[in-house]
């Protein structure tokens, strides 16, 4: 007997271990996969995913009164629809509505409560998996509530057995309706989330562009210089303020504008005049401007960012300053721009002080790409002591 007991307990332990392993497998491998697949299926008919990587989650917070209120309202509307289009359950339409409402609200509130409890868990998951899990959870809730409803009816004595003849049909009907409605609801939440994300990232991109155009360092240093000039040379201060106004008007304007080449050169020269106040004799510019036909147009602020980049990385870091060379010419209906600046001697070839990220240049390159497509060229050449950017754009401005 003693032998038997121990054998039995060993078997029981083994069975237990296997069961645990199975449960773990279900939890760790199978469920996430099912959730993923479900989520992806739901995503199939969702709009293109917006840029992800944001912290907010697509599911609304179902622990909050507002969301619950909305759910109660929607559930009630659904109950009305169901009551109107189904066969009469009782003799009285109003009584039907009460019964259906009770059942639908029960499911809806249980679902909201489940999502509220599961919130912390769902928040940690990637979107498509969370979507799948939420969907499966809601279907499970429907199944459980339907089953509970049958039991309540049986215990209340309304039906004679917990397995009435309509039992299977009842479950299938509920699950099907829930599957469709939940899919629609989740799909709506996802779409709303993606729309919000896109609006957000567009707004951020706009701010980023503006900030890259108006460098705070340039702005405040120039204001300091103007404050100084107001005492010593009021006329120079006046010119600086007016130049700044012109420059900022252009920077705040529409970047899609096409302007004659001479306009762009004029605004670039105003910018250089302002920088020259700060940098004094350290900034020397060697201009060479060829002849341009009158029809030659160029997107606004193409030349100025090139000069700004040259000053930022080529003149400011060198104590003695240097010469920026600017070449503009027209050839075969293409406008050629070449800006070259010196580079500071690196402290040591290994003591890397990487050039600050080339935001200015990246922005310009992207702008030219979106404006001209393949028709424009943008080339950067870095030599040990020189850095140059060459831009070639069609003379007629392309299609904005």
């Amino acid at each position: 007997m003693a032998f038997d007991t121990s054998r039995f307990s060993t078997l029981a332990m083994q069975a237990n271990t296997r069961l645990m392993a199975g449960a773990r497998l279900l939890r760790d491998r199978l469920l996430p996969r099912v959730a993923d697949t479900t989520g992806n299926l739901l995503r199939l008919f969702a709009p293109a995913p917006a840029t992800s990587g944001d912290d907010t989650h697509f599911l609304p917070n179902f622990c909050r009164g507002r969301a619950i209120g909305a759910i109660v309202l929607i559930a009630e509307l659904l109950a009305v629809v169901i009551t109107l289009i189904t066969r009469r359950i009782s003799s009285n339409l109003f009584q039907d509505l009460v019964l259906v409402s009770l059942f639908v609200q029960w499911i809806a509130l249980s679902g909201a409560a489940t999502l509220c409890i599961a919130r912390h868990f769902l928040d940690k998951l990637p979107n498509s998996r969370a979507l799948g899990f939420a969907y499966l959870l809601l279907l499970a809730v429907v199944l459980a509530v339907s089953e509970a409803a049958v039991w309540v009816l049986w215990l209340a004595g309304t039906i004679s057995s917990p397995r009435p003849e309509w039992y299977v049909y009842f479950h299938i009907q509920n699950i099907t309706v829930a599957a469709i409605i939940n899919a629609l609801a989740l799909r709506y939440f996802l779409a709303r989330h993606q729309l919000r994300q896109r609006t957000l990232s567009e707004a951020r991109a706009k701010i980023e562009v503006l900030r890259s155009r108006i460098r705070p360092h340039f702005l405040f240093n120039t204001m300091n210089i103007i404050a100084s000039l107001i005492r010593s040379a009021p006329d120079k201060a006046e010119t600086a303020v007016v130049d700044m106004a012109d420059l900022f008007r252009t920077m705040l304007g529409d970047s899609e504008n096409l302007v004659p080449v001479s306009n762009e050169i004029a605004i670039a020269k105003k910018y250089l005049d302002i920088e020259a106040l700060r940098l004094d004799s350290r900034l020397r510019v060697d201009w060479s401007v060829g002849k341009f036909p009158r029809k030659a147009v160029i997107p606004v602020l193409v030349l100025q960012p090139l000069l700004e980049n040259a000053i930022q990385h080529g003149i400011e870091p060198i104590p003695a300053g240097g010469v920026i060379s600017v070449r503009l010419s027209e050839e075969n209906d293409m406008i050629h721009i070449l800006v070259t600046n010196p580079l500071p001697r690196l402290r040591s070839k290994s003591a890397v002080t990487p050039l600050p990220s080339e935001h200015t240049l990246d922005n310009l390159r992207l702008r030219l790409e979106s404006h001209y497509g393949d028709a424009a060229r943008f080339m950067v050449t870095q030599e040990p002591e020189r850095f140059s950017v060459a831009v070639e754009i069609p003379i007629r401005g392309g299609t904005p």
Partner: protein
Amino acid sequence: MRVLIVDDEKLARDRLRELLNEIGGHVVVGEGMNGNEAVEKAAELNPDVVLMDIRMPGMDGLEAAMHLMGMENPPMVIFTTAYDQHALHAFEVNAVDYLLKPIRKDRLAAALDKAKKLTLQQLQEINQAQETPQARTHISVHLRGNIRLVPVQDILYFMADSKYVTVRTANEEHLIEDSLVNLEKEFGEKVFLRIHRNALVATDYIKGIEKSTTGNWQVALSGLEKKLDVSRRHAAAVRRWARR
């Protein structure tokens, strides 16, 4: 107070000078255009306060302040800046005073009233808080109350003995009070390679790694007759570096 003004922009220096005149009670003893000049002029002119821009070509204001703090009687430092998000946050955290450009007269007067001496630690913490903490461009050597700035790119090696570290360039040798561990951490092994418990050599100057007649590894440096011993413990790391 005796004030030294350091800014790479002439008009910015002019403005400070004029504001100081209006405030009264201060003498501008000199002006500098970059960090190197700040250190040289501070050693020569002995100012009470240095008004210094942070961003300057060559040596920046932060590094210059670090060298100043090594002086026997360091001046007080007030930084000026147009816009440096990261630096400003670090300044707040470390209670280091700064002035924002365009500079206001009353703010300047208040800053001069409560100006205080900085500590090397404050400056190092500010440097660490930067987006890319900068290694020094120069090592400051103190000679009888004077400061000598040795460009890091000229240094062949650092050699430690019991108390001091010797800095060796092609033509000179200086003693500094620093530790090889700190130097190694600051510059990283890309710039100075540890070849011995007591030696860091500049990777840029390594000409070759050879075996001596006694079977020990040695490093030959360009511009230097004698060869430096590689300790057994560092031999593997040195050869790994050479293979790259």
